[in-house]
């Protein structure tokens, strides 16, 4: 009997927590397709707000996708070889490098953005271009790619694979392309999903780095929260959810498959 009561109370508690997380998201989705949120859903369902957002903010959505893909490309090209090098070299230097590249995760984005502005604010063309935001995103997401790939190397004994290929006479870069990268694929995929998700949602850095001509989706979101009617802000958030949730589902799916092995 006592166990039943404890179970019921815990279930109730967990349901309340879930409601705290889910209700505002549901409200936002509902508000995004409601004719008049103040009057409620009875006022009718519409896609006019979504259309208005696409009209006003399509540029920010495209920009965010482009920056996320650009960030992904750089973290792949720079991060995957680095993860390999850090793993096979090991030792104190590798740990130090890993520690340094992970710092941007522990340091508030605001500090990082200030540093970038102070260092490169004077380089007008760079400052005004998308590359400035891209640089910030690369620094912020790099550790997730590097560590995700290093974790895979640790679990598949990449050193013996590498040595095996070397004993067959393969050159280092051939081994990297033909042996290392294919074997690291699950880690590269997990890291890529993480990088794209983080880049699409990044605000702390981007708000400081953006200019009126370089606005990303989260910057546009903050803009709409401050100045647009609730329905438009909600429709914009809805579009963001639609972009981000498949990535999240894919990440969880990969995580579960990984832990089921």
């Amino acid at each position, binding site marked *: 009997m006592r166990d039943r009561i404890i179970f019921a109370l*815990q*279930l109730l*508690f*967990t349901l309340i927590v*879930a409601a*705290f*997380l*889910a*209700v*505002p998201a549901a*409200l*936002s989705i509902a508000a995004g397709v409601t004719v008049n949120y103040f009057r409620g859903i009875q006022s009718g369902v519409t896609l006019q707000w979504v259309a208005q957002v696409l009209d006003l903010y399509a540029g920010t959505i495209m920009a965010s996708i482009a920056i996320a893909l650009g960030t992904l490309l*750089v973290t792949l090209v720079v*991060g995957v*070889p*680095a993860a*390999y*090098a850090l793993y*096979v070299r090991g030792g104190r230097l590798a740990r130090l*490098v890993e520690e*340094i*590249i*992970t710092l941007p*995760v*522990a*340091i*508030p*984005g*605001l*500090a*990082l953005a*200030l*540093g*970038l502005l*102070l*260092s*490169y604010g004077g380089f007008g063309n760079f400052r005004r271009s998308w590359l400035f935001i891209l*640089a910030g995103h690369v*620094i912020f997401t*790099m*550790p997730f790619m590097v*560590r995700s790939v290093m974790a895979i190397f640790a679990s598949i004994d990449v050193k013996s694979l590498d040595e095996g290929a070397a004993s067959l006479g393969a050159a*280092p*870069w051939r081994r*990297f392309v033909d042996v290392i990268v294919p074997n690291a694929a699950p880690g590269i995929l997990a890291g890529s999903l993480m990088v794209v*998700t983080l880049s699409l*949602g*990044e*605000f*702390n850095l981007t*708000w*400081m780095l953006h200019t009126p001509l370089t606005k990303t989706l*989260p910057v546009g979101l*903050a803009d709409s*929260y401050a100045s647009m009617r*609730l329905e438009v802000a909600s429709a914009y*958030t809805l579009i963001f959810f639609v972009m*981000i949730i498949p*990535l*999240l589902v894919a990440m969880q799916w990969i995580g579960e498959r990984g832990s089921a092995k």
Partner: protein
Amino acid sequence: MSHKSFVWICLLPLAAVTAAFFLLPMARLLVTGAEGPRGLAEYLAILVEPRYRATLVNTVLLAAATTVATLIIATIAGLFLQRHRFPGRAVLVAILTFPLAFPGVVIGFMIILLAGRQGLIGDVSARLTGDKLVFAYSIYGLFLGYLYFSIPRVILTIMAAAQKLDPGLAEAARSLGAGPFAVLRDVILPGLAPALVASGAIAFATAMGAFGTAFTLATNIDVLPMLIYTEFTLAGNLATSAALSVGLGVMTWLILALARSFTGNSVAAAG
């Protein structure tokens, strides 16, 4: 080409990118912090200047409250979900983890929908008591926002840690006559301690340094990230904002590093 030089070449792009866009900006930040009228003393202003110190205290209290509340809530819900199997459990776990990818700005908007001027809580309270309860645009709204941000992360960590606990230990304690609360206090919570420390540190560091949620809710909430932002953009006070953000960065980094040395695991904050 030898293997050794290939490894170095693999590291080169990372070294270049990190040096140019992280190490150099951080060095610049450090130098700028000391270039104000106060010189190096600017770095002490966060502790000495009453206005900054009050903000620092405020921020630390908010982060501590967030951490304690998140750990309690997530431990209850996480242990419950790990121990019981029932219909709808998977849906519940999915609901509790999907806000993981929400950036701070979006979480701010969630809090506005909940406790803002057109929010649900205001609506319900107006109908029940005639008084419209609106607190999204204050430090309480920010507290709720950080809970929203931290709960999914901490629940996931606790569920994973609880899964690794040896069920035999709790079983043995029970067979020796320990009640459920004694088992929780003496067996389960000590077993979860590393996970609690690690995820608590992330919650704390995030609540200290996150900017998006506070920015969405109100620009005049008195926390460090907002102070840094207003000093930089409104007051144009480069040295102060640089020194304050160095101080904030050192604090969040220290918290995470301490948690890591305690648990032996690497932890990372986000947002």
